[in-house]
């Protein structure tokens, strides 16, 4: 079943490396977008709130594959050159960012109003109280769901094969479709599953560590 194991493992490990890079890079983009969205969501300026809401509705309600295709094929037609990596990372990041924003927002909503009132009462501006009082607490409160988002992203990252990034999943497809049929279908499938499990497992563990480090005594 695991014919030509060495060359299969080599290919899958390279694919796994790409999957990890895609996941972490697009997660960083997603968190940055989520942070901007949540600040807009709680902003006193109504247009900022509307814009954040529109963004969230758009990216949360369109299938990820469609987001990737629209960016990959649509942007060049209006004169914006695209690359596989550019669309892959941005598409994943923008899609996941909508979820990250909502997750952070639920974190902010879980912080008692008195915290914001106390922050304003010592003279912090809106931005300062977000930065020093509200967001640090909100962020800690939502580390577990943000972790789930990361795990989901590991698996969603498989979709960037559609725009031509050879990550773990597309590597496994390549092995199965090997012109010389050197690899067994089940051997590859089981191996690629183990790879995804291993990546997700390690990331879950890191999330758990982060959760423990960020915990403050309540």
């Amino acid at each position, binding site marked *: 079943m695991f014919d030509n194991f060495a060359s299969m493992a080599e290919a899958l490990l390279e694919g796994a490396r790409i999957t990890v890079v895609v996941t972490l890079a697009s997660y960083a983009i997603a968190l940055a977008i989520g942070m901007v969205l949540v600040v807009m969501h709680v902003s*006193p300026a109504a247009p900022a709130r509307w814009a954040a809401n529109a963004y969230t509705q758009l990216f949360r309600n369109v299938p990820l594959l469609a987001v990737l295709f629209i960016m990959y094929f649509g942007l060049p037609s209006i004169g914006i050159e695209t690359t596989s990596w550019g669309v892959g990372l941005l598409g994943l990041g923008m899609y996941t960012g909508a979820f990250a924003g909502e997750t952070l927002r639920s974190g902010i909503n879980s912080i*008692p109003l*008195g*915290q914001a*009132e*106390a*922050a*304003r*009462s*010592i*003279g*912090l*501006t*809106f931005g*300062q109280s977000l930065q*020093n*009082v509200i967001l*640090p*607490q909100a962020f*800690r409160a939502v580390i577990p769901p943000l972790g789930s988002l990361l795990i989901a992203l590991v698996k969603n990252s498989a979709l960037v094969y559609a725009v031509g990034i050879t990550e773990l999943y597309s590597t496994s497809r390549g092995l199965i479709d090997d012109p010389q049929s050197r690899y067994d279908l089940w051997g590859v499938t089981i191996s690629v599953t183990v790879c995804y499990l291993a990546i997700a497992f390690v990331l879950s563990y890191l999330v758990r560590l982060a959760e423990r480090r960020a915990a*403050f*005594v*309540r």
Partner: protein
Amino acid sequence: MVSISGVNKHFGDLHALKDIDLTVEDGEVVVLIGPSGSGKSTLCRTINRLETVDSGDITVNGKPLPAEGRALANLRADVGMVFQHFNLFAHLTVLQNITLGPIKVRRTPKAKAEARARQLLERVGLAEKADVFPSQLSGGQQQRVAIARGLAMDPKLMMFDEPTSALDPEMINEVLDVMQDLAREGMTMVVVTHEMGFARRAANRVVFMAEGQIVETATPDEFFDDPKTARAQDFLAKVMTH
């Protein structure tokens, strides 16, 4: 220090503040008392614009309250506020709670802010608690930290919104003692409270509110010994029987 004139405020159909006029002089301790829902907390919160008003004028230190923004933040920095539920920053240690304002708002160097914070903790009797988190303190201790946090900004005015209402009875006095010391040192204070003993001892003036109106304003002795209005007499009869 504070001048409030013709202030009205509604919460939906509820007319929470009705034509309020009130001035607080420098160094004066004004205690707001009255039944629950009389508007005294709301009035207190309008002074640093945690509540906006529908009409009327409020000036603090001669300046009208600005709209939300940096000018308002600057004004709030000069007005200390102590809440019923303490509202200490849950993710920060006691020391960090006290130094956050001085460091971020006043741009005080960290070492200096911490030295001052430790002095203030000493003053409220909590010197050894600098490095614990708020949740590790009793309610009375948390409230004393909250007072220290307010004082760290060197406020021109300290406001207390029912500072002992969420405390167990045996912790009330430790907070009232700190407040009374402050009053004696000449701090300008606006205090919303149900502690009649404190009002009598510490207040220069008692303001009695009911149904959103100021019903009676008097010195503590006048008010407690000889209330003029039927509403105040009725209130005092209810709260002073025990």
